[in-house]
């Protein structure tokens, strides 16, 4: 079921969390709301769920305007950042909650809960309490609980935020597979660009309560609409007015047209890739990413003088009003 948001604004006191946002989330897709913390992405998700009431604007799910419909009757499933388990209920009772509220027959509830628990692979913990589960298991319980009521829209708020790196990776892949099986329209909020790139069909980049760009991951990476998107998705160097990706910086022995001499300041081996930090003759500092064998071929070492060339530098028109949003530290995977 498609989600159509029109001119949504939400203020908390003087703070504008969401500023006149319009967005369409296509039916059956897995969409990421990506942005730094405080960008308003979670508020937007909570507005779709009905947990926050927008000051202006409308939310349409499918062909139903739900702007004034309470969360109970929106047909959504919501997974909270900290899972919000019902602590006094067993895993089984947690997952069954939405069904018992709907007064479904006991046998049906039992069967459905069993199916869901095996879907999320925590059947063996059905009689435990949430406090007896690990973070990843709690996360999956929360997902099963949200899926139990067969929502037409699944909303996840930083679903993997509180998990350690390995569990995160597993659950991401698992969420993607789950989505490929169920095809429920899904929106998840994240501040991790790698997570968004890996899992989502489409990414909505949010900053300062407004949408910077919407598109498939590859398009955002290859054709960022502005400096913010360029800096937030993938890593960048700034060369004067231009922006360049580290893997678009060539390191050469010989001088070629457009190349600049540079001093190798640091060489870091990161498995397949090698990160080279360079001080260029014009005084700017850049870092390049080169494949391991190329680095070995060049016999890169600290103190060496090389030539650098930016293969694909990009400039963006300066926005007319407010100063361009300076990206935070590039997100390192």
């Amino acid at each position, binding site marked *: 079921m498609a989600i159509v948001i029109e001119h949504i604004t939400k203020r908390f006191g003087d703070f504008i969390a969401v500023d006149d946002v319009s967005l369409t989330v296509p039916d059956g897709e897995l969409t990421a709301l990506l942005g730094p913390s405080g960008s308003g992405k979670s508020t937007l998700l909570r507005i779709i769920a*009905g947990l926050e009431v927008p000051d202006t604007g409308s939310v349409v799910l499918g062909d139903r305007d739900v702007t004034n419909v309470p969360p109970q009757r929106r047909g959504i499933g919501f997974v909270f950042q900290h899972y919000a388990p019902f602590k006094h209920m*067993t895993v089984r009772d947690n997952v069954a909650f939405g069904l018992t509220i709907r007064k479904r027959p006991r046998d049906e509830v039992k069967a459905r809960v069993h199916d869901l628990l095996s879907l999320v692979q925590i059947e063996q913990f059905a009689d435990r309490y949430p406090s007896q589960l690990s973070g990843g298991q709690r996360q999956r319980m929360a997902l099963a609980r*949200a899926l*139990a009521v067969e929502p037409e829209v699944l909303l996840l708020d930083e679903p993997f935020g509180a998990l350690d790196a390995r569990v995160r990776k597993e659950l991401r892949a698992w969420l993607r597979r789950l989505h490929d099986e169920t095809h429920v329209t899904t929106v998840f909020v994240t501040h991790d660009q790698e997570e968004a790139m890996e899992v989502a069909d489409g990414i909505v980049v949010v900053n300062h309560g407004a949408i910077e760009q919407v598109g498939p991951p590859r398009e955002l990476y290859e054709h960022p609409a502005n400096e913010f998107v360029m800096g937030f998705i993938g890593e960048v160097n700034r060369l004067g007015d231009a922006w360049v990706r580290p893997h678009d910086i060539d390191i050469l022995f010989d001088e070629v047209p457009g190349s600049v001499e540079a001093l190798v300041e640091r060489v870091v081996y990161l498995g397949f890739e090698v990160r080279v930090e360079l001080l260029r003759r014009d005084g700017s500092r850049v870092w390049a990413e080169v494949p391991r064998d190329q680095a070995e071929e060049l016999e890169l070492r600290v103190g060496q003088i090389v030539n650098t060339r930016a293969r694909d530098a990009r400039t963006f028109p300066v926005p007319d009003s407010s100063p361009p949003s300076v990206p935070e530290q590039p997100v390192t995977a």
Partner: protein
Amino acid sequence: MTSTAVTGSQNARSPSYGRRWPRLLVRSIGLLYLALLLALPVGLIFVRTFAGGLEPVFTALRSPDFQHAFWLTLTLAAIAVPINTVFGVITAITLVRRRFPGRGLLNAVIDLPFALSPVVIGLSLVLVYGQNGWFGSFLKASGFQVIFAVPGMVLATVFVSLPFVVREVIPVLREIGTDQEEAAYTLGASVAKTFLRVTLPAIRWGVIYGVVLTTARSLGEFGAVSVVSGRISGKTETLTLYVEERYSEFDLIGAYTAAVVLALIAVAVLLAMNALQSGRGNQAREWVTDLLRLGRRKRRPVAETNQAEI
């Protein structure tokens, strides 16, 4: 044996962070303090009560004034505790979850019964509901007596025991946050169902502890009830008032017996609370949980209960 050696030899079992004798000293001071202030006086009452054998005690228990005071005390508690529980939970939720003008003031007013002397509370009730009070003439005209009657005593008891449930529930509500309630909403639960099935079970230990404290306070109230009741034997006398009255009449056995009964009720309340607390996961807890489910489901055999909940 030096103290170091003692500490060293104990390290294997339990960690100790200092010399042994200061810990023993602290422990002894604590125990002595409790013994002198609590155990000895209460114990002496028991000893004195039964010093003359059981017969005088039974005579005292059979006294109509005692029996009236006993039932009146229980009645007052039975009215005050549910009222303060229901309104306490509502007030706590309002204070924690709602932002409204006057919230800080309400928060402060809740503690008034803690801060004010019960005698002052009693006097203030007389000023409002007494014959010459604000509502006095109105109440007299409608033939409803508050002061020097049971309604006034109920008011006084409710007043003095008001803050306990609120104060016990507020921190628990803060701690659980709104996540679970929001989750229940997204799963289709109405506000009422969310309260019964999510909020109430989550705050139940706060509520239970508040109820125990409210009960203890209601049973033991003296000052406020003393002022508003007029202390008419056999009519408006609670157990605490009865104890004092018997004592001043030199009926020591009567006073001691009533005191022992009060102490026993208090002990029973405390034991009930302890049973509930230490009984997490055992029968007492299941009993309370069943109670909180408000009989939604019929009891099933225990073996099946775990497997087939809901």
